[in-house]
């Protein structure tokens, strides 16, 4: 059982898997999620690996499953998601699944195609019916009048006597032809114009009422009817209609034909409706049946693909009968690993068992931290800034308290804290509700993942709300205020005259009875009604922020000691930790000391004489200050001393480690104390590698000159690297100290903003609105 304080010990192990039972063993290992596989074939491309065929098959199945899931979702069928994930299927069962999937896909595609075709037909028939109906009404109207004069537009090219015009054309033997159809409303004008220009007025276009088609592509369409004389014009008109992508329908000559066509259309539409509804029912049935197992198959295929991907990372040994895999395994879980291998071998019925062998390694193992549902949120936040090295101290367990606490210092509101805590509790109670777990809303998912963090933040906010005495931006008077206004009157400081003459009055705590002692817990509720509330609170909160900040940063620096002790770098304690601590404490620790001293040393009687800490702090750096009254005897001397110590610690931090390592390499006196390292860092920053090089150089008598040259160059490179790293670290640390201390002032800024906005939103805005209504 690992602890959260430090990452776990991880070792490299070699697995020897029988070819027959490799699949099952890796399936077992996958279910347990114990180990990390190393890729033993890094130079092989993914198309040349051994199990590429199986992976292709898995991907094909995934494609079909994706299509099925999309169809199921489109039909809004609920997917029953099982509680327990199914295990990966055996290779021999895969063919069955594959076959079923392919069958389902073919069926679905066919049904969808048919459905689309039927719908297209339906649209056509409905349009045709409408065209017939509309033109029928027009023709009827026309035949009542017994003239074929145009209803819509006059064409000036026609003869004046339109009646004789008709008979004259008939005498010419030209036939009156009709074309009817649908055209989008937008194109009607252009269509008309083109027709008139091309046919020189020998056609009549009648565009009738609009027809809006309900459906996926609903356009405003207009029914039109073109009447023309002669065949050639007819062909021209036909071509123009095709240009404009109109839906043309044959116009029936006589009324009986029209009625027949309409009847047949009506019956056909009826049939189509029936067929369509049956098709949809069938589709739904198919999808319902598929939805039962689709989810299981999806998970199974995913697991299978992962297993083959892992198998691709293993290498075959010489006899080609056994797979070798290299894994990083936590030392504590080696027994579980053996158990999993045994289980896998037993399941596949292999005669020769697979076994595991621990091997030594020079590479840095990966960092493993086991978290549960409570700590995983905090660990994720910490890892967003970077993952620690192997066996380094993990800052996450401390974050569990400091992160919500610092949030609460900024949020500091009892009422809102309770709302936050209640929201988090609601999420916690519905933790295992599958509907909540499967929610697809991004924002809600983020909040749900951090439900424990939010709970902690809410509880801490309740506490800081009590301290700030702020509940929805109003104070609670639980214990009775320590200030008394009556005492100002009874001591004859104020009279009714004073009240009338002055707008603002200040209570004087030096008058007896006015201030009876500090409020037991938190800030006195009278401050909520005072006009100089912010003056007081700003000073208090700013100082509190700096104090919290310096404590937090010092704690962080001290955590580094555990690393130095663990990796047995005693020089780190003296050359890195001590200068860092001295720099931080001599400057900002002294500031904190001055703040606390001023709080303790000056009471309300001497409050007029209390000096400004800021002025003193600035003068400390400028090394002036004779003009100011000192806070305490010996202040000048102490400040100069602290300043000197702080400034001296910077070069020690900068040059200490590189010089020490260089001297160590040159001198080589106390090597013995540095054996037995656990950690070896991959790559160049190696104090240890330097040690070992030293060892081999002194220990081994046979070293040819070229080897020495190479080693010397490598060592020189390492020294440069150490020096540059040291410079970067020093600059970052010193600047970081100053800038981070200042940025802790956000604790003050945000709590101020929260109070003001809350007051505005909850009390001032409603009051203003109601006053505006009254006046």
């Amino acid at each position, binding site marked *: 059982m690992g602890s959260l304080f430090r990452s776990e010990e991880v070792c490299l192990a070699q697995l020897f898997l029988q070819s027959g039972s490799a699949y099952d063993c890796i399936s077992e290992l996958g279910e347990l999620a114990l180990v990390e596989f190393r890729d033993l074939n890094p130079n092989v491309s993914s198309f040349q690996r051994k199990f590429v065929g199986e992976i292709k098959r898995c991907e094909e199945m995934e494609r079909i499953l994706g299509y099925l899931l999309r169809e199921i979702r489109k039909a*809004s069928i609920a997917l029953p998601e099982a509680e327990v994930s199914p295990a990966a299927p055996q290779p021999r069962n895969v063919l069955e699944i594959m076959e079923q999937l392919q069958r389902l896909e073919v069926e679905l595609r066919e049904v969808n195609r048919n459905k689309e075709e039927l719908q297209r037909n339906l649209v056509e028939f409905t349009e045709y019916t409408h065209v017939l109906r509309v033109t029928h009404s027009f023709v009827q109207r026309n035949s009542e009048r017994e003239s074929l004069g145009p209803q819509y537009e006059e064409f000036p090219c026609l003869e004046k006597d339109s009646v004789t015009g008709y008979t004259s054309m008939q005498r010419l033997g030209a036939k009156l032809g009709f074309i009817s159809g649908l055209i989008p409303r937008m194109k009607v004008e252009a269509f008309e114009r083109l027709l008139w220009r091309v046919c020189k007025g020998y056609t009549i276009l009648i565009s009738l009422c609009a027809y809006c088609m309900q459906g996926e592509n609903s356009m405003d369409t207009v029914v039109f009817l073109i009447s023309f004389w002669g065949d050639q014009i007819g062909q021209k008109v036909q071509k123009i209609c095709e240009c404009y992508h109109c839906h043309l329908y044959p116009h029936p000559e006589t009324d009986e034909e029209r009625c027949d066509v309409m009847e047949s259309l009506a019956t056909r539409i009826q049939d189509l409706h029936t067929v369509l509804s049956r098709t949809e029912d069938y589709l739904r049935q198919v999808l319902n049946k598929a939805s039962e197992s689709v989810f299981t198959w999806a998970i199974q295929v995913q697991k299978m693909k992962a297993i083959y991907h892992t198998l691709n990372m293993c290498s075959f040994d010489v006899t080609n009968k056994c797979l070798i895999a290299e894994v990083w395994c936590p030392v504590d879980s080696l027994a579980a690993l053996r158990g999993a291998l045994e289980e896998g071998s037993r399941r596949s019925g292999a005669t020769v068992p697979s076994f595991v062998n621990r091997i030594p390694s020079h590479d840095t193992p990966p960092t493993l931290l086991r978290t549960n549902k409570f700590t995983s949120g905090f660990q994720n936040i910490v890892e967003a800034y970077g993952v620690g090295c192997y066996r380094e101290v993990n800052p996450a367990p401390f974050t569990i308290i400091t992160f919500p606490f610092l949030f609460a210092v900024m949020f500091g509101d009892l009422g809102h804290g309770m709302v936050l805590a209640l929201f988090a509790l609601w999420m916690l109670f519905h933790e295992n509700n599958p509907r909540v777990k499967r929610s697809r809303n991004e924002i809600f998912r983020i909040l749900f993942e951090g439900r424990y963090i939010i709970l902690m933040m809410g509880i801490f906010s309740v506490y800081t709300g009590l301290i700030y005495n702020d509940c*929805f931006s*109003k*104070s609670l*008077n639980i214990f009775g205020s320590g200030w008394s206004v009556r005492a100002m009157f009874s001591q004859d400081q104020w009279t009714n005259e004073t009240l009338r003459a002055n707008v603002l009055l200040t209570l004087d705590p030096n008058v007896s009875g006015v201030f009876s002692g500090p409020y037991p817990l938190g800030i006195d*509720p009278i401050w*909520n*009604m005072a006009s100089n509330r912010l003056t007081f609170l700003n000073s208090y909160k700013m100082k509190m922020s700096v104090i919290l900040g310096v404590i937090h940063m010092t704690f962080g620096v001290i955590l580094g000691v555990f690393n130095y002790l663990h990796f047995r770098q005693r020089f780190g304690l003296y050359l890195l930790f001590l200068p860092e601590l001295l720099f931080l404490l001599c400057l900002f620790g002294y500031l904190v000391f001055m703040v606390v001293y001023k709080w303790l040393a000056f009471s309300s009687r001497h409050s007029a004489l209390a000096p400004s800490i800021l002025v003193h702090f600035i003068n400390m750096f400028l090394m002036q200050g004779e003009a100011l009254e000192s806070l305490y005897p010996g202040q000048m001397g102490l400040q100069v001393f602290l300043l000197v110590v702080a400034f001296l610690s910077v070069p020690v931090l900068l040059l200490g480690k590189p010089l020490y390592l260089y001297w160590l390499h040159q001198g080589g006196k106390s090597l013995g104390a540095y054996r037995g390292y656990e950690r070896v860092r991959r790559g160049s920053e190696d104090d240890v590698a330097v040690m070992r090089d030293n060892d081999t150089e002194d220990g081994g008598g046979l070293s040819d000159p070229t080897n020495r040259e190479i080693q010397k160059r490598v060592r020189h490179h390492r020294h440069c690297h150490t020096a540059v790293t040291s410079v970067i670290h020093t600059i970052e640390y010193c600047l970081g100290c100053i800038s981070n201390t200042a940025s802790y002032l956000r604790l003050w800024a945000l709590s101020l903003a929260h109070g003001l906005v809350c007051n505005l939103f909850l*009390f001032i805005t409603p*009051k203003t609105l109601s006053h505006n209504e009254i006046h």
Partner: protein
Amino acid sequence: MASLLFCGPKLAACGIVISIWGVIMLALLGIFFNVHSGVLIEDVPFTEEDIQKDSSSPQAIYALYDQVGYNCYIAAAIYVFIGLLSFCQARLNKHNEYMER
């Protein structure tokens, strides 16, 4: 009963949330006004003469406090009514959605 439904699902949910907040906040405010808490003095509509009238015990101010408190309780009751209405609407919406399927 043609259709008692006049708001959609989201409006109904909004109404429920705001009603719950309104009920809790106004009920608490009413309690605090009845307890004559000093912090809420700015919200009590008193005039100059009210201050002049009372010599030793501020009875007029207390009476005003109680009045504002009762106003808050009435507002809370209205919110309860609105909350119930929204809840009914939300249930009807869910019923319709189920029937449509």
